């Protein structure tokens, strides 16, 4: 574990770097989300542009499905703690370069990209890459210049990050993202175009025989059991039809309950697989290969018999946000919209929710009619939405300047808060399944569906969970706490049923890391630490509230209700304040 405790600190302003040995951090906070948030707390005052922190975990490069990097930063979208997780190859590359975490401070004197390897950090000129409209081109140039194929990861931003879109993402390996909460805009402010991570070290273990035995068991379970089948076959778009059938797929900003049967079929994972699926990809060290690439073949506008083909990654959240949420149900058009946000480097969920809000706000006369030119926002109107995405990214008009700050900022400026689907200033994920989902978004440390999977509680319809605010608060906190352990190790949440607490403890013994027996309690402590940090940054638990629209739009599960929500949040807060509270 000697490499894990090494923290690499790069200062863009001073153009210097150094390494600190921090065994204390990894012993107290495990790794990943635990360590990155603790480092952000340490460094957030040191860098007026806001630090960007990356951390990997003790399972990285050792066990399959443990190849995610966690980024912590001050979110330009919420103004508070931001955290984003990305798969791909960055985690393995960072660890094999000999580091457990990377801290990027300051602002570069001109656009630069960093090269991180065993020797430390190089600061490279990226002026010629700045302003490119498609974020894949700078990646190709960095790839060709820096070498290291197969043992390398390239993080980069597109024009959205450069132009301060508060929900700009950082893309890695073309199809993976630090998607949510605006890390791309943090890079943009730092004049940091990208980071190339390269590493090829071995990762020693303390008990090689036990390690191999446990590894083989884990691999067999992942590759042979049905636990991963959903992600393996159709990928997460397999959720479209069942969620639509139960009435939990958000449609047209929740104005409409369902799509027509034909429209739902067009958006389904089955349809995308049959018509467009071209290739499947995996993150490093993952047998599942959940990344599904569609081939989008379009006629060139100017010449007959010329086609432009691009390869677009699709999953459930994207089909929701740039499909059902804005009434676009033609699969090819959804892919065109996904392709556009990918090129610009924007978070697809936030973009879709903002487009939906704009459409409804325009319908309801909250917005001046001359704002949009010829392409006015209308449900299902792909050309208008493509034009709006361009304007969000590039148009200097005050309305689009506000749109770059997010849906909460738009509704505060122009009205329409009742139908602005934001939770803690973060745009809503694709689950309108019931109060479990919506309270989960509020209570989650990132206000994300991945924090505690409240939507799964709605789908299971366990009567006891919803019998009282205390029961629901406990169920959400339990999942949130466990996911804090997974995101600190760092394990992919898709493998959460394989990495059960007992299994985690067993695996940790083979690599000589010490974890407490009560992992849930440890996870809760990690959550409390982040919450305390959020409060230092100005977050107020008592200000959390549900958007009115989710309370009035019918859900298949228990209908969200402001009073029940208030009581559940109060119960959760009570548990968190009580040091003797136990989830066991």
């Amino acid at each position, binding site marked *: 574990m000697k490499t894990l405790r090494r923290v690499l600190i790069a200062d863009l302003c001073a153009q210097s770097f150094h390494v600190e040995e921090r065994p204390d951090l990894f012993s107290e906070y495990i790794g990943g989300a635990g360590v990155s948030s603790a480092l952000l707390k340490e460094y957030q005052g040191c860098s007026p542009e806001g630090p960007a922190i990356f951390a990997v975990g003790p399972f990285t*490069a*050792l*066990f*399959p499905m443990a190849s995610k990097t966690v980024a912590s930063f001050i979110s330009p979208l919420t103004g508070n703690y931001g955290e984003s997780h990305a798969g791909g190859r960055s985690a*393995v590359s960072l*660890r*094999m370069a000999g580091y457990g975490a990377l801290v990027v401070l300051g602002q570069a004197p001109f656009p630069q990209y960093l090269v991180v390897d*065993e020797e430390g950090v190089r600061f490279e000129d990226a002026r010629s890459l700045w302003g490119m409209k498609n974020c*894949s081109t700078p*990646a*190709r140039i960095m*790839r060709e210049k820096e070498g290291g*194929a*197969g*043992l390398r990861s390239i993080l980069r931003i597109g024009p959205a990050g450069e132009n301060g879109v508060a929900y700009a993402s950082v893309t890695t*390996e*073309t*199809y993976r993202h630090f998607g949510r909460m605006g890390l791309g805009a943090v890079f943009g402010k730092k004049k940091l175009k990208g980071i190339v991570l390269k590493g*090829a*070290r*071995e*990762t*020693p*273990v303390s008990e*090689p*025989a036990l*390690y*191999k035995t446990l*590894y083989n068991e884990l*691999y067999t379970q992942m*590759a042979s059991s049905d636990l991963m089948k959903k992600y393996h076959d159709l990928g997460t778009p397999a959720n479209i039809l069942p969620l639509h059938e139960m009435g939990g797929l958000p449609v047209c900003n929740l104005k409409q309950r369902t799509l027509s049967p034909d429209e739902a079929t067009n958006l389904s994972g089955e349809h995308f697989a049959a018509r467009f699926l071209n*290739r*499947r*990809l*995996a*993150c*490093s*060290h*993952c*047998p599942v*290969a959940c*990344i599904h*690439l569609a081939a989008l073949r379009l006629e060139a506008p100017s010449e007959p018999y010329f086609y432009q083909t691009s*390869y677009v990654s699709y999953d459930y959240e994207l089909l929701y946000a740039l499909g059902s949420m804005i009434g676009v149900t033609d699969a090819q058009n959804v892919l065109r919209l996904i392709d556009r946000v990918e090129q610009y480097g924007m978070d697809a969920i936030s973009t879709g929710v903002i487009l939906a809000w704009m459409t409804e706000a325009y319908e309801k006369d909250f917005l001046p009619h001359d704002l949009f030119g010829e392409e006015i926002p209308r449900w299902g109107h792909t050309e208008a939405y493509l034009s709006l995405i361009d304007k969000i990214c590039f148009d200097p008009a005050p309305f689009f300047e506000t749109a770059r700050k997010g849906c909460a900022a738009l509704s505060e400026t122009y009205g329409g808060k009742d139908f602005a689907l934001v939770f803690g200033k973060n745009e809503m994920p694709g689950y309108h399944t019931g109060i479990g989902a919506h309270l989960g978004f509020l209570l989650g440390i990132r206000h994300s569906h991945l924090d505690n999977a409240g939507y799964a509680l709605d789908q299971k319809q366990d009567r006891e969970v919803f019998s009282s605010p205390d029961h629901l608060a406990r169920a959400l906190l339990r999942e949130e706490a466990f996911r804090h352990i997974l995101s600190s190790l760092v394990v992919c949440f898709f493998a959460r049923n394989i990495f059960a607490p007992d299994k985690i403890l067993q695996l940790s013994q083979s*690599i000589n890391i010490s974890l407490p027996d009560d992992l849930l309690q440890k996870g809760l402590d990690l959550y409390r630490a982040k919450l305390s940090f959020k409060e230092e940054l100005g977050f107020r638990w008592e200000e959390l509230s549900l958007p009115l629209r989710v309370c009035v739009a019918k859900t298949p599960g228990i209908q969200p209700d402001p009073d029940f929500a208030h009581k559940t949040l109060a119960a959760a807060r009570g548990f968190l304040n009580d040091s003797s509270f136990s989830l066991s």
Partner: protein
Amino acid sequence: MRIKLSVENTQLCVGCQLCMYACSRRSGNGGLGLSAISVRSSGGMSKGFTIVVCRCCEDAPCVEACPEKALIQIKTGGIRLLKDKCTGCGLCRDACIIGAVFWDSVNRQPNICVQCGQCALFCPHHVLALTKSEEKTP
């Protein structure tokens, strides 16, 4: 009997690199530092993957290039590295024009494929296979 690793169908490769981890794990440790197989994108992930494995050449240039006779050809397939003899000169790597002699930068020695087939065992999509044939080695 001759044993040889072969790439059956690169189109099915998803780039998971489990083969590389399996190869490196033969040492008992994790990571990719000791891998003698490589999977890399063919110019961006959308274009698929290039898999580089030792072809187990009948008249292996890497063996010929080694001035210390640290590489020896095994009759049943594969090359063996005699670590004590290796000086880390890198001539074997230069001699392999398909790039299948990989490098352990920590120990400054080549990572040589021994045709053990661990990589194929851990390939979830059956891209790799260990084949046995009756052909004779020179």
